[in-house]
């Protein structure tokens, strides 16, 4: 009896020791994840007077509804939605074809899909500028075959192209992950029960891959709506997005309070987006890494 109690005591001590292993991480998380997010809220709800003291104010929040910010929000969401939709349209067939490839080549092909993401985003975007600019590759080609130059950079389409190019793999990966797990017997059963190709697609494959679509959408939408480099470069600075505004407030206007307010908006926007998406899909959408 005594031995059992002793053993239990030791077990308790051991499991305490083991949970204690997480303490440094917990302290770190509170200091550098939770506290910073609280500071976002704090800065958003305060203003600074001439002597550098903070006082509470809703001025930043009310400024959001003004003319200088509403179009920016609208534009960001529009661009991000369009880019996400195009990504979905491009990625869905690709993911399907990939899942139909030989298993041995699938691993290789998936590596190929992911590889461009390891190139720095700045460079990937810059190299598109090179292709599209006035004396860039495409226009050089047009000149050589005697066609007039086209203005390809600095419009909305270029911004969307930048987003689609940079974030397409984020859409392909989760959809592919889900599709490759679909049991082929379901498809056979559907065929046996009289479904033709499109019907099987619509009634069997599409519902079964919904969770992948959902996580793909969030994984493309979140970076698209918050980007600031792509819109600056591909849009020649003519299409200001939330990210651009935040960057300007921090790096040139030094208005941390307005910058924090905009970040807060971005966060709320994304929480809403995630919540909506979670209602549609279940959790195991497919993890990228």
């Amino acid at each position, binding site marked *: 009896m005594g031995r059992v109690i002793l053993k239990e005591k030791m077990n308790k001590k*051991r*499991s305490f020791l*083991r*949970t*204690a*292993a*997480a*303490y*440094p*991480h917990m302290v*770190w998380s*509170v200091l*550098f*994840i*939770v*506290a*910073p*997010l609280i*500071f*976002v809220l704090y800065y958003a709800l305060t203003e600074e007077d001439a002597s*550098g003291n903070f006082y509470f104010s809703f001025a930043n929040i009310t400024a959001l509804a003004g003319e200088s910010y509403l179009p920016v929000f609208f534009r960001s969401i529009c661009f991000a939605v369009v880019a996400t939709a195009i990504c979905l349209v491009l990625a869905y*067939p*690709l993911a399907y*074809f990939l899942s*139909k490839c030989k298993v041995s080549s699938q691993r290789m092909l998936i590596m*190929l*899909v992911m*590889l*461009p993401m*390891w*190139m*720095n985003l*700045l*460079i*990937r975007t*810059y*190299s598109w500028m*090179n*292709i599209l*600019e006035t*004396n*860039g*590759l495409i226009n050089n080609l047009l000149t050589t075959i005697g066609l007039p130059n086209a203005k390809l950079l600095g419009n909305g389409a270029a911004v969307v192209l930048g987003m689609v*190019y940079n974030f*397409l793999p984020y859409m392909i990966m989760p959809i592919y992950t889900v599709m490759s797990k679909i049991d082929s017997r379901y498809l056979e059963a559907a065929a046996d029960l009289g479904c033709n190709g499109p019907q099987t697609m619509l009634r069997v494959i599409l519902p079964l891959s919904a969770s992948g679509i959902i996580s793909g959408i969030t994984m493309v939408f*979140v*970076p698209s*709506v*918050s980007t*600031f*480099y792509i819109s600056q470069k591909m849009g020649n600075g003519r299409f200001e997005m939330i990210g651009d505004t935040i*960057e300007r407030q921090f790096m040139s206007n030094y208005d*941390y309070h307005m*910058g*924090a307010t905009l970040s807060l908006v*971005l*966060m709320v926007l*994304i929480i809403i987006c995630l919540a909506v998406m979670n209602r549609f899909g279940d959790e195991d959408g497919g*993890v990228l*890494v």
Partner: protein
Amino acid sequence: MKLLSRLYMVLIFVFLYAPLLIMVLFSFNEANSLSNFTGFSLRWYEELFQSEEVLDVLSNTLILALLSAAIATVVGTAAAVGIEKMRTRWLKTAVNTVSNMPMMNPDIVTGISMALLFAFAMKLFHMESIFGFWTVLIAHVTFNLPYVILSVVPKIRQMDRFLPEAALDLGCTPMQSFFKVELPAILPGVLSGFVMALTLSLDDFVISYFNTDGDFQTLPIYIFGMTKRTVTPDIYSLSTLLFAGVLLLLILSNLMQSHAERKEQRIAAAKRRARSGRRG
């Protein structure tokens, strides 16, 4: 249909790779141009390695990546061990949710929230500036942590949970049991977490950008500065090198993983043989 699907895949891959190929090609351009390829030369690579600024930035980036990945791996592995053992459900969920936040939040929000913390600390302690190496390091460790935890936790779950208990019963101290029994079992996860953290840290621009001052520059920040001026092909040679580095890391970690898988398979096969041998 088969032909059509092949064609579609080729088209998408061309779309994904064309800009990268152009970048690599023009990094070897002889002329100072990013649109006319005149001939092959290593000129821009040479210029790169003669620039002291670039070498400085390169060493900054590597030191930062190695250090942040190392810290994140140690803290994250310990955290994974602890979190898996937690009995209080809500605490476990809370810890997981909080530590995943940098993964869910857009980079710009993570970057700015930390910048605000540091700005406030600066104000509080009346400091000149704290932005620089240390703030970027803290930021990198923070966004690396969830990825390390995510790659270690599955390995802990896969491990035979009686192993550490057996070690303890045989007289190991908890520390010994961790280092001699558990760590070897979860090592593949720990290593892939480290590599993941390394690549993320090498690649990060947004979070570093908001948490540094003009003096401490990493490669992506330096590249960002370069794209603001008129650009010469050396930016492409720099990114080609960066890409080659990341590629090497990825191949290495893939090899490591498949090596570990093969080893596991061999052990399993040996066990099966031993069992059937006893029976026979």
